[in-house]
């Protein structure tokens, strides 16, 4: 194989089937592999593709500014924000995007804003008043209205809200038929489509949880967790240890006396795998621990299953991995 073929591979000029064939040849020859690495390194550093047009650059730059900077206050604010971002990035060693949502002096009304965190990623964004919302993997949030006296959001998935309470401004989270209102506070709400319950856990402050039919109206105290069944509308309130609640914002799994069934859904959301149980009884096994998300799923499974003497197998096909627990 000549250099030119490797170049064509790197510069993506080969048809897919040929690509695979060339690739297989390269990985089998240390010599070709070295050439490949050298060429790819140089090519990537060359900056040789068509430049972005002025308009495209302008658009990127304003996107950049909107994300990280509050225009009216200018650079001073950016520095504050950037400092904050640095703290997060350093503390949690992960990549986050900070969005700035609205300028308090000029509230955006009746404008829907959509944010999401894809599989295996966590996003956070900051509201104009400094409140922070963290989105867990596979989650999305719509800010449906920001008015002088209220902010309303719709949530799918899981989020942690660290809201700076303002008596003159209500902050409301809608999840299906539940309405959760901040009364000054830090709390998490979980409402994944593959969950059969909605949970709201209060870490600090006070929140009110209501449903649209007015059958439920509860004010939670710190450390309380409300679980609401989607099937029949019943709910329970438990007092839990919130030390690990919201640990996912630090890219860690937090499992406190959690059942394997619940853990499996967290792993599915993060790693994009399918987990099935041979015996439903296994779903009731419980586990407590905090695990780094940057680790591989095999590691996580080893940690969880080994002490309980449970075995698992992985069946990998094209783009999906199926895991069977038995």
């Amino acid at each position, binding site marked *: 194989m000549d*250099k*030119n073929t490797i*170049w064509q591979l*790197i*510069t993506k000029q080969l048809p897919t089937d040929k690509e*695979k064939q060339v*690739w297989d040849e390269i*990985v089998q020859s240390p010599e070709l*592999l070295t050439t*490949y*690495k050298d*060429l*790819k*390194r*140089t*090519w*990537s*550093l*060359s*900056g*040789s*593709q*068509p*430049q*972005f047009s002025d308009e495209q*650059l302008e658009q*990127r*730059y304003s*996107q*950049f500014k909107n*994300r*990280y900077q509050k225009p009216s206050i*200018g*650079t001073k604010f*950016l*520095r504050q924000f*950037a*400092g904050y*971002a*640095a703290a997060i990035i350093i503390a949690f*060693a992960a*990549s986050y*995007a900070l969005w700035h949502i609205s300028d308090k002096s000029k509230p955006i009304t009746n404008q829907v804003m959509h944010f999401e965190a894809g*599989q*295996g990623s966590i996003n956070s964004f900051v509201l104009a008043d400094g409140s922070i919302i963290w989105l867990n993997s596979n989650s999305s949030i719509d800010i449906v209205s920001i008015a002088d006296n209220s902010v309303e959001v719709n949530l799918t998935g899981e989020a942690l809200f660290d809201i700076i309470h303002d008596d003159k401004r209500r902050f409301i989270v809608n999840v299906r038929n539940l309405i959760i209102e901040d009364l000054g506070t830090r709390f998490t709400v979980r409402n994944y489509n593959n969950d059969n319950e909605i949970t709201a856990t209060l870490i600090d402050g006070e929140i009110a949880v209501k449903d649209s039919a007015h059958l439920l109206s509860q004010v939670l105290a710190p450390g309380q967790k409300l679980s609401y069944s989607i099937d029949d509308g019943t709910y329970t309130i438990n007092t839990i240890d919130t030390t690990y609640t919201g640990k996912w914002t630090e890219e860690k799994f937090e499992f406190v006396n959690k059942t394997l069934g619940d853990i499996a859904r967290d792993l599915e959301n993060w*790693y*994009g*795998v399918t987990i099935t149980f041979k015996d439903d009884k296994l779903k009731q096994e419980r586990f407590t621990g905090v695990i780094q998300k*940057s*680790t*591989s*799923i095999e590691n996580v499974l080893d940690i969880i299953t080994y002490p309980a003497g449970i075995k698992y197998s*992985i069946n*990998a096909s*094209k*783009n*999906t*991995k199926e895991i069977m627990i038995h």
Partner: protein
Amino acid sequence: MQYSLDIDMSLLKSGHEATFEQVYNAFYSSLYFFANQYINKNADAENLVQETFLALWMYKENLSGNTPGSIKAWLYTTLKNKCLNHLEKESHKLNYNNHQLHQYKIDIDILGHMEISEVTFDEIERLLYKALEQMPEQCRRVFEMSRFKNLKNKEIANSLNISTKAVEANITRALKHLRIHLKDYLPLCILLGLL
């Protein structure tokens, strides 16, 4: 070359926004191109580039170098590390086939061993200049203006007092010349986007 552009480092360090924007515009395209070689999803590559500029904004006061070239090396190094982190995280996910995982491993290896300094970019430039020296005068001037100063054909025509058609013809000639002259440097030609 590309960054024969003038960047006032003291203005950048003091947080002068127009200067920052100038740096952003000068390097965005090539940084994106870099990230895109290793990160499959365009949106992810774009995010990493944006984060790199955020990092520049955050650490601008503490930049050690004082030349535009040193910013370039700093930006590339920062982006390289971000790509590396991203790939390592991705490679732990399971929804990839062996072929993709293999590619991740090799890319991680390339990035892990990549040292970027001003000299890195000088090497590439030197080769190009060597080729340019062999060109007829007018032809070279047109090519340099177009390629390195990013001037539009019309602007070149005005400043050299020739027609736009002549500018186009000269660029074509320059490219052809480079192609012939650099045939031993095929990688470089591709590298410079000339083929």
